[in-house]
């Protein structure tokens, strides 16, 4: 009994001071267009078979109009919709939120995030997809290590600017 307790305590003490963490910088570029709407953006983690394993963020119009909230346009995030969105019951706590303005948005997520909590250590791909009303659509992918140290970035050419990622265990 005493020994068991010691092992359990030892296990607790062995936990790192910082939990696994992922930091993302996502730039929504300034666009010179006649009719500007903020883009819908989905950020998720996929495995080798392109299965969506964790939704990190989904930004869409939350304000209700005569057609309801902006969920009508979520399928425009085509890959996210097919991989995950269409089976998801939005809104999702800690994942869905309102659209963001032009600028660089930083997301710092650790393994307390509801979707990352259950994601085992390993190699994954971060996917950022943006679609804009009367605009275009763009999708970027960055490979990374979860519960490990990695760094990566990608640059969009239309709907997304610089996207950079840093992880540590």
């Amino acid at each position: 009994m005493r020994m068991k307790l010691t092992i359990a305590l030892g296990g607790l003490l062995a936990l790192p001071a910082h939990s696994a963490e992922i930091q993302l910088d996502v730039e929504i570029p300034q666009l010179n267009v006649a009719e500007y709407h903020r883009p819908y953006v989905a950020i998720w983690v996929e495995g080798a078979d392109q299965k969506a394993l964790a939704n990190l963020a989904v930004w869409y119009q939350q304000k209700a109009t005569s057609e309801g909230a902006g969920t009508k346009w979520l399928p425009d995030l085509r890959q996210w919709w097919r991989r995950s969105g269409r089976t998801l019951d939005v809104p999702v706590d800690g994942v869905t939120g309102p659209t963001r303005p032009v600028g660089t948005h930083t997301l710092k997520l650790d393994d307390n995030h509801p979707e990352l909590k259950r994601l085992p250590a390993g190699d994954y791909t971060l996917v950022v997809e943006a679609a804009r009303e009367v605009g275009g659509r763009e999708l970027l992918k960055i490979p990374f290590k979860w519960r490990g140290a990695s760094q990566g970035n990608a640059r969009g050419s239309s709907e997304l600017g610089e996207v950079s990622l840093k992880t540590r265990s």
Partner: protein
Amino acid sequence: MKTPSILAAALATTLAVAMPFSAFAHKAWLQPSQTVLAGNDPWITVDAAVSNDLFHFNHVPLRLDNLVITAPDGSNVALQNPATGKYRSVFDLQLVQQGTYRLAVVNSGLFGSWEENGQPKRWRGSVDTLATEVPKDAKNLRISQTMGRIETFVTNGAPNDTALELSGEGIEMQPLTHPNDLFAGEAAKFRLLIDGQPAAGLEIEIVRGSTRYRNAQDEIKLVTDAGGEFSVTWPEPGMYWLETTTQDGKTSVPQAEQRRLSYVATLEVLPQ
């Protein structure tokens, strides 16, 4: 009465070309405004026409009398705001349920031709009107049975398969890849069946829409394998028209010697 087979084939070809409403001569289709939907209150509007160009209205409207809409739970639901104009029919559909809807115009009937006072006569009708409208002792009387299905698919939220169940009549397509999960550059698989049995050797033609804006049909020609299956890798996104036709002697009406079967689907392929 048995006509030599070469003559029969020649006759069938002539008839097919001469029939203005035949799916053999022109392209019949249902085109939904959108196939992948979500939101609080999704609706689609659908165009139905028979045309030369895909998907433009330049020949005749497709009649909606035999339209059947199957909801994700398998029940039949009604269309809304139907109208038929000079070149097209339109209707709306409210997608109340979550899942996949199948929209199908299922035509079955009889086609007859004969000679009267040296003039060729043509007739279209049903088993019920055959006895009263067609003279039994007509010269060169030929009756054939036609069965055709023109369909498309629309999904609200996550796709499901209940509405895709087969009826076992005529040519049907059993999707092995969901028809609302088609992406450019990816292969999709389907199985074609005749009367519920896998149909080997069926010739399929697939044409992407907007043919008016290019100089070739760019059709994809495929043939089903021994299991009735075929696979297509979509070259680019767009609304595609798929057709297959065949004929056999398995008529359910004793007067008819021949059965003509056709199948058309409109499928939307999305960009990667």
